[in-house]
């Protein structure tokens, strides 16, 4: 949650950065680059493009610092810029498949490979098959431990939609792992 000490530190840093203190902006970068990295690296696979995007994100943040109203955490605001910048990039590169969850071809898990890989590797492969948006949501929820509300702020979606997307993403990911766990796709009659 957004606690008062966070707000105070954010305000001080923004104030200093706005008055031309580059070191203060350096601290903002240091404090947010992990979250920004998680978003950019999960959404964009091209390493060179990630570099350009990271630069674009922070320059956008710097240019728009004056309009940041402290309604959310500074990190959430920068994460929101990151997400939107990556979405623009994916749209421009036509790498976004609207309404499609896991249907990216050519990334299948071959049986022999599956059995040799460790769980983390399997999971990574499964993640790679997910749509960038779902991959990012899983990362933000399970790794960054953000709430549905915070993810909603970043992605601009209502918390209910985030919850629904996360459900589908987890389900898809679990199906990728089902074989590894030796589970049979049994027909279940749900209540």
């Amino acid at each position: 949650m957004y606690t008062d000490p966070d707000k105070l530190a954010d305000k001080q840093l923004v104030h200093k950065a706005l008055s031309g203190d580059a070191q203060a902006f350096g601290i903002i970068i240091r404090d947010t680059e992990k979250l920004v990295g998680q978003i950019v690296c999960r959404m964009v696979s091209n390493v060179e493009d990630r570099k350009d995007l990271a630069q674009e994100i922070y320059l956008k943040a710097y240019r728009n610092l004056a309009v940041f109203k402290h309604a959310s955490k500074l990190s959430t605001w920068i994460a929101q810029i990151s997400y939107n910048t990556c979405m623009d990039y994916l749209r421009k590169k036509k790498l976004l498949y609207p309404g499609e969850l896991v249907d990216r071809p050519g990334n299948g898990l071959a049986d022999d490979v599956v059995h040799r890989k460790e769980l983390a590797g399997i999971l990574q492969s499964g993640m790679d098959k997910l749509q960038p948006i779902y991959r990012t949501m899983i990362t933000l929820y399970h790794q960054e431990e953000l709430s549905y509300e915070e993810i909603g702020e970043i992605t601009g979606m209502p918390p209910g939609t985030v919850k629904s997307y996360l459900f589908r993403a987890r389900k898809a990911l679990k199906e990728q792992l089902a074989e590894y766990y030796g589970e049979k796709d049994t027909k279940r009659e749900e209540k």
Partner: protein
Amino acid sequence: MRSVHLTEEIIQAYALNGTHEDPLVVAHIHECETCRAMAESYARMFSALEEMPVATFDFEVKELVLPQLPARAKARPVLVPVLVVIAGSLLALGGAGWYFREYLSGIADPSVPYLLYCLGPAALTLLVVLAADLFSSHRQKMTRLEYY
């Protein structure tokens, strides 16, 4: 026990929290092998997700971004030296006026000494303003030090 299985959504919620607000769901999970297996499978996946390596940039973001920052007009404390000069001049004038008050009262209008007496408080006020500004600047610098 329920004759039908739980929905996957409920099972996910159970696996996320390790329990569920509905006691019937908890009871079902304990009794139904299929639903329990699925809940355990989700729990393993969530645990593995938390342990997955964090995706990080393989370059120094600060080094990349900071040199590109557009110059922002730095708020320079131009006012401080100006205020110091004004305060100093006023003090000097006030002091001189006080020291030579007898001569001045003799050669000038009778209202001049009273005017000179006003300069002292004015200079004092300026000094107070200056001191407050210096204190504020000092406090800001000290706060900034906490970040390094």
